[in-house]
């Protein structure tokens, strides 16, 4: 039942070797008064019954809905090789590579992953993954506190609101101050962000593209932050990096983001992975595992976990983070995804997302009463203003099989009529045209 292979004979022999009369005797160290008062679970079932149950649950999973939603998590195509290679049991059923000689597969893959993240973000040093995008932004904020020895973080309001919630929670515990700067329409309010930076500021956190889909140039902001010896943290959407200026190009000190869109299934919220990369001089402040290159006694190249003295198993409460298990397998998927597309394919994919979103933008903004709210460039998301409450419109479109976008009212009071629409390469022209037609219908009939 519990996949325990030992036969009654095995068990008898083992008990004899131990010198115990019964298995129950081995639980003697647990005093009677500490024993479980209840363990009320149903009896088990066979594989067949289990799959029947699980398939039933998977049947009501929103599979027939066409998703024009994002909000940090994106419906992208995943090359078949990703599933096949990442499912290799040797990757899948190993654990943290503490013993490097029998874990070169994982270690080299993570080294390649780190390289990939550095190249995507324009940075010099990446760790081997964090939990997800939100905790990655939070870890970057904590990292900036350590580097600058300051206590104030400026948080741009156009950063994903779910992520901002997580950052605020992490900072709250440490009595660090989070200063929120509201966006200006769909853009970061650069003037206010810059005037908020002072000599107490550890970092400014922005996102590119931001939650409204807008893409902005942060070079001046970086300069201003550096003038005050503060850091610029940019959270970025990795698929956009095929086309949009990277955090590194814009002068960021730490780049983070949600890695899901790199080859990880939607899976109702996880597992995904967070990435974090920085300048080489800040490497000792990175949280989590890092893989480094070295050699063995014969001079052969190999890879090991390195700079472990930052981590909880050595530094305990002084560690740069509490993270232990990370999201290695999801990071491996990200690596294989990038490698299968390659230099050219990755750029083409980004271009395709951009082209489709630009097309959708023109079609949807042409619907009667609908306006585009972004004033500048966008990547594969944009914000519409509807003539009606967006939450109601979304709900009615859901009934017609369309997830039209994320209504902004619940995250930005006052923006009840705004809707963020996401268009990945998987959405067809027909689906986009259909969304426009249904939107027109829901608004006006």
């Amino acid at each position, binding site marked *: 039942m519990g996949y325990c292979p030992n036969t009654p004979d095995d068990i008898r022999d083992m008990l004899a070797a131990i010198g115990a009369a019964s298995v129950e005797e081995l639980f003697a160290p647990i005093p009677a008064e500490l024993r479980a008062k209840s363990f009320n679970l149903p009896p088990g079932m066979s594989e067949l019954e289990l799959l029947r149950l699980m398939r039933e649950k998977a049947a009501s999973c929103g599979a027939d809905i066409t998703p024009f939603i994002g909000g940090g998590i994106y419906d992208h195509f995943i090359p078949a090789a990703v599933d096949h290679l990442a499912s290799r049991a040797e990757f899948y059923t190993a654990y943290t590579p503490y013993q490097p000689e029998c874990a070169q597969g994982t270690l080299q893959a993570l080294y390649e992953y780190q390289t990939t993240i550095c190249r995507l973000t324009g940075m010099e040093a990446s760790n081997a993954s964090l939990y997800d995008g939100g905790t990655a932004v939070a870890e970057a904020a904590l990292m900036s506190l350590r580097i600058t020895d300051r206590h104030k973080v400026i948080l741009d309001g156009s950063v994903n609101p779910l992520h901002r919630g997580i950052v605020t929670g992490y900072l709250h515990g440490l009595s660090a101050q989070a200063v929120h700067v509201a966006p200006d329409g769909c853009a970061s309010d650069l003037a206010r962000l810059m005037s908020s930076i002072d000599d107490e500021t550890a970092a400014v956190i922005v996102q590119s593209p931001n939650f409204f889909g807008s893409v902005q140039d942060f070079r001046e902001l970086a300069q201003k932050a550096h003038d005050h010896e503060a850091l610029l943290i940019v959270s970025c959407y990795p698929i956009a990096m095929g086309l949009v200026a990277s955090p590194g190009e814009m002068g960021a000190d730490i780049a983070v983001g949600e890695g899901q869109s790199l080859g990880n299934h939607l899976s109702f919220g996880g597992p995904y992975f967070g990435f974090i990369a920085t300048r080489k001089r800040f490497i000792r402040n990175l949280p989590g595992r890092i893989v480094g290159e070295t050699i063995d006694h014969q001079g052969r190249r190999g890879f090991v976990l390195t700079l*472990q003295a930052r981590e909880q198993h*050595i530094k305990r409460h002084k560690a740069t983070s509490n993270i232990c298990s990370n999201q290695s397998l999801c990071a491996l998927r990200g690596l294989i995804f990038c490698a299968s597309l390659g230099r050219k394919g990755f750029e083409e994919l980004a271009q395709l997302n951009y082209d489709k979103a630009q097309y959708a933008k023109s079609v949807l903004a042409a619907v009667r009463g609908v306006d585009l709210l972004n004033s500048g460039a966008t990547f594969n998301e944009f914000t519409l203003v509807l003539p009606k409450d967006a939450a109601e419109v979304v709900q009615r479109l859901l009934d017609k099989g369309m997830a039209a976008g994320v209504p902004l009212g619940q995250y930005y009071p006052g923006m009840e009529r705004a809707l963020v629409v996401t268009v990945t390469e998987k959405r067809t022209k027909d689906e986009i045209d259909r969304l426009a037609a249904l939107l027109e219908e829901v608004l006006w009939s």
Partner: protein
Amino acid sequence: MAKFYTKEHEWVEMAGAQATVGISEHAAHELGDITYVELPKIGKSVKQFDALAAIESVKAASDIYAPVSGKVAEVNQALNDAPELVNQGAESQGWICKLDGVNEAELGALMDAAAYDVYLKGL
């Protein structure tokens, strides 16, 4: 001038009112191959036995405490690129920093070389 040691295995040597500080040969040996020394900021003031710097090897990390109170006047910049100097000579070229404004009376709370030897034998 004589060297004095702490129970936490730092050493200090006075020259006038300036003290040179490092970790003992014993500590360096225990840590193994040093991979990093986090040097204090110049100008930082410390009290006796406060955390002053930190040192790391592959599998360990530990704080270095100030053997005497003072203000950091100079740090051993060479350790930034060559932390192995601590292994090569923890009580010579592997010194960590120099402290100004030291009160020699505080040395009374420390061990001299002979006492430190006895202390090590008892560990």
